[in-house]
């Protein structure tokens, strides 16, 4: 037998509680529950039992178990009883066709290496619990996988789904500092492999888009914030694609060595060969993004303009050099 207070004992206690509340047709008073669930016998006092039972009820409800409180008092008292409604508890009996299970499997595996991998696998297992699946392997020929490496993903997702106002530190582009933002979340979307939050920025009194990777530190819920509604016509992806405007709006001039800078050559809208180097006109939208890309080419690509991107590249190269020659990083 396991330790009476360890996590295994707690699972055992909670499972016994679920079983007896699901089994009963009439609501059970607390005194009865204490007698039926043996682990409650370990409670040293009435108060200790009460505290334990209150916490257990909360935890079961957090798992989505529909534990209800009903009045069972007779004429003389107002005692309450507890039970779990079978129909409310159980997943409706739905049978899925093999091709439906195949796409559901694909949808579930989309999250296989993301923070939601657990819930995604659990969900599929629930749907498959009843049926014996035939060959469930998909022959669809495509396999999508999502990542959620941004630490802000979990709290932001919970705030979006639960419609709760949040506050967080946000790094602005370039070398800008971190400032605090308070936002009513509307939507969360992955776009071009990055997660974005859309919502109403209470500091700026305007709708805004935030890149999750730029959220700095903790995301905290604003207590007692007034409820808000998500605009009925809000489409997160549309707002992101127009706001972030990954549509390149500017053009950089870079020079690349012969046969080098192939990705840049491919995107270039103009090129002009002069000896060892070719000059390219490259459309871009994000200074840091272009500077990252160009820095990766080392000595094979040089930014001629705009100067701010050129400076960013030089700063990166100097940083890399000093980090690898014993200088301070």
């Amino acid at each position, binding site marked *: 037998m396991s330790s009476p207070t360890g996590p295994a004992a707690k699972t055992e206690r909670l499972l016994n509680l679920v079983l007896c509340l699901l089994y009963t047709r009439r609501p059970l008073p607390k005194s009865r529950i204490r007698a039926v669930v043996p682990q409650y016998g370990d409670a040293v006092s009435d108060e200790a039992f009460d505290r334990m039972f209150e916490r257990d009820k909360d935890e079961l409800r957090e798992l989505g178990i529909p534990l209800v409180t009903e009045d069972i008092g007779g004429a003389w008292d107002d005692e309450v009883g507890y039970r779990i409604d079978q129909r409310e508890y159980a997943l*409706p009996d739905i049978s899925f066709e093999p091709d439906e299970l195949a796409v559901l499997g694909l949808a579930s595996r989309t999250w296989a290496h993301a923070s939601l991998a657990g819930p995604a696998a659990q*969900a599929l297992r629930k749907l498959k619990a009843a049926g014996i699946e035939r060959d469930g392997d998909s022959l669809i020929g495509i396999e999508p996988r*999502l990542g959620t490496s941004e630490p802000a993903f979990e709290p932001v997702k919970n705030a979006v789904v639960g419609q709760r106002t949040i506050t967080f530190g946000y790094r602005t582009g370039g070398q800008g500092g971190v400032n605090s933002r308070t936002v009513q979340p509307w939507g969360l979307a992955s776009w071009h492999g990055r997660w974005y939050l859309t919502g109403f920025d209470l500091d700026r009194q305007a709708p805004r888009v935030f890149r999750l990777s730029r959220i700095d530190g903790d995301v905290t819920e604003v207590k007692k914030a007034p409820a808000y509604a998500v605009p009925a016509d809000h489409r997160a992806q549309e707002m992101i694609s127009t706001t972030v405007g990954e549509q390149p709006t500017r053009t950089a001039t870079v020079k690349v060595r012969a046969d080098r800078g192939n990705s840049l050559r491919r995107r270039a809208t103009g090129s002009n060969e002069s000896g060892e180097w070719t000059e390219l006109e490259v459309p871009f939208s994000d200074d840091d993004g272009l500077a990252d890309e160009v820095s990766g080419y080392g000595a094979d690509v040089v930014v001629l303009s705009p100067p701010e991107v050129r400076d960013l590249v030089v700063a990166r190269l100097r940083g890399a050099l000093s980090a690898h020659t014993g200088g301070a990083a």
Partner: protein
Amino acid sequence: MPETATDRLARLLTMVPWLVARQGIDLDQAAAELGITVEQLETDLRLLYLCGYGQMPDELIDAQWENGRVFITNADTIARPLRLGRDEALTLMVGLRALAAVPGLGERDAIERAMAKLEQATGASAEAAARVEVAISEGVEADLLADARRAVEGHRRVHLRYLVPSRDEATERDVDPMRVVNLDSRWYLEGWCHLAQDTRTFRMDRIARLDVLDVDGTPPDDAQLRDLDAGAFTPRPDDTLVTLLLQPGAAWVSDYYPTESVQTAADGSQTVTLRTADTLWLRRLLWRLGGRGTVVSPPEVAQVVSEGAQAALAAYGADADPPGTGG
């Protein structure tokens, strides 16, 4: 992270109906399909054996797993799984909607049917899930995607003109396509590459041209697809072991690349080891990181990073008159 008592309860409440519907399933197979170890499954079964709606023998769950076969009886009260939780419903709904947006997918009908049934089963959760969106159809031309899928399905060889950014080369090669995958909204074609004589993964936005050839493109029997869930890169044991020191701003690197070990210091910086055969991509990464990442060892790699950065700076210095001089 160890499983909490409530996480375990949630897992057991899903596991019991699953096992009840598969009476007599092989213990090893059950553990594998449930994604847990055999030891964990046995520990779980021992716990179930102690639980019931009362403590009389006929009120307790009966779990048997002698002879390696699992039987669970007297578990009628929890023989149906608990409704889908919020995150559970969300993952499936968002995943299905992402699939539905993939251009030219033939399974649209199955996706729509599955989505309708799921909505029926989840109610309000489905509505909340609508606020999370995933665009995976971006960044690839519909024609290229359609041609690639057609080649996979019809076992046709393709000819690719492909840019290899880590070596900064444009290459021509014939490939027997095996699968089209989307990782973090990026499309890849995987297949047997006749140039490399091995399976290779091609980023579709780097495919400059794809021609479906009128040639059978069945890959060799021993061609192995990589395990997507193991991450984007699969290192080999004889690759060079590199140790990096990452400043907090570069911590994403350890999420993005497969590492052998990660140690996080109190200030958020990380010491990471990883294996790689080719250090060119690593040099590129370190130039990009601009000092937020440092090669601790081996010294040869640190050396080439610093030489490359020096050469690149020289290329800027040689350009005597930068327009609009900054700092």
